């Protein structure tokens, strides 16, 4: 579903030099997989995730999603491709002046759906994330966990093939974290949506990922298989991350 081929990304440092955030990385993520990106802070997890929907443009390499090289698309085609890629954020990033329903409707308005289709899809998504009774509330009236459910419903609304999640539970308490993870897992299983999730918590990897890439200094050190609580890790880094959990 997602193929990153030899992608590179560097940022300008304040001193004028360059900082390699992602160096020559290749990664393949299968359809229907829940794939983790783990590593310590600054390892380049968020950058790698943002390269998948081209929020960051790679300096080299190809980003192939559902058979389409996103780096080759013009602005309009890229916008259309992005509608197939939902994104969930650590800080939720909901629109404060739109109701819950309005937030979930947003990507559908963007995609040009009819009002009737939007209304029924929004209701459906509210049901999926368990917020049917909150449709008319504003984000300010919700708890963190509820806000993230709205974030997930919004990402899910246009029936994307992939959902990208950048530390979706890092702003939440452990109990809420589990319920959000269950929600993502449920969506993955019911709709076959591929999920790529950035996290620094091993617990997250154990509870929902099928596989995970361990990142360090902009490179993939190892891709580990996850079978429930069993994580088959070889690299020292992966082991130290495991122990930290």
């Amino acid at each position: 579903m997602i193929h990153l081929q030899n992608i590179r990304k560097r940022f300008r440092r304040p001193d004028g030099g360059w900082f390699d955030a992602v160096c020559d990385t290749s990664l393949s993520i299968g359809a229907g997989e829940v794939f983790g990106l783990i590593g310590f802070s600054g390892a380049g997890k968020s950058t790698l995730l943002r390269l998948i929907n081209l929020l960051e443009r790679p300096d080299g390499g190809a980003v192939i999603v559902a058979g389409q090289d996103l780096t080759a698309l013009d602005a309009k085609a890229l916008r259309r491709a992005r509608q197939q890629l939902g994104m969930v954020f650590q800080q939720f990033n909901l629109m404060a002046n739109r109701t819950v329903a309005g937030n979930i409707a947003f990507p559908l308005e963007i995609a040009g759906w009819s009002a009737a289709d939007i209304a029924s899809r929004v209701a459906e998504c509210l049901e999926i994330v368990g917020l049917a009774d909150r449709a008319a509330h504003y984000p300010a009236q919700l708890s963190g966990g509820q806000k993230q459910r709205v974030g997930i419903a919004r990402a899910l609304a246009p029936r994307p093939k992939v959902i990208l999640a950048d530390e979706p539970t890092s702003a939440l308490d452990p109990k809420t974290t589990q319920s959000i993870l269950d929600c993502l897992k449920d969506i993955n299983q019911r709709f076959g949506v591929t999920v790529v999730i950035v996290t620094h918590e091993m617990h997250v990897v154990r509870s929902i990922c099928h596989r995970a890439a361990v990142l360090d200094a902009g490179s993939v050190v190892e891709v580990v298989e996850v079978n429930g609580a069993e994580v088959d890790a070889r690299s020292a880094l992966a082991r130290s991350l495991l122990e930290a959990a």
Partner: protein
Amino acid sequence: MEELTFAAALADLASMAPEIWQACRETALMLAVGLAAAIALGGPLGIVLYLSQPGQLFANRWVNGLLGWTVNLVRSFPFIILMVSLVPLTRLIVGSTIGPVAAAVPLSFAAIPYFARLVEQTLREIPRGVVEAAEAMGASPMQIIVKVLLNEARSGLISSLTILTISFLSYSAVAGVVGGGGIGDLAIRYGYYRFQTDVMVAMVLLLVLIVQIIQFAGNRLASRLDKR
């Protein structure tokens, strides 16, 4: 004695009612034109100023620098000097340099960069992540501006417009004195040149009242629109 003066003042004002009404209409006209120009031209200018900042959708150091510099330039002119230096332009556009329509030209000229800065500041308060989320969902720049930026900033924009209106009520008094007419002009003409203090006091009270009403309405609308 005192009652007599008060009664006399009232009678005086009553006899001037048509003139006062005329002054109100002139002030309203000057403000309406100035505010319309500010919204129609200053608004988009403010959006461009914001979007061309580093890290924003259309980050462009040169565009941002040039526009920022121009806005500062116009804003650094004391209003009265701006007004005098714009006399040729006013004559070109309106065909005359007196009357409320002519006064509206320098008012607009000052209001555009002023409002542009207010809009820019207001838009800056929107969390970057919200705009990024819209980008990630495939929103076009126009959709981001209308559906995200303007909608998320709507209450701040109303507050900015309130500030602008009140500032320009006072600017319009200055413009009025040099031939624009309006409430401020009436106050000066009677109060200052003809020593009719009662007229001046009444006009100032009228301005105080108008400012309070504008501020009250602006606050009400802004807080109703704010769901944060």
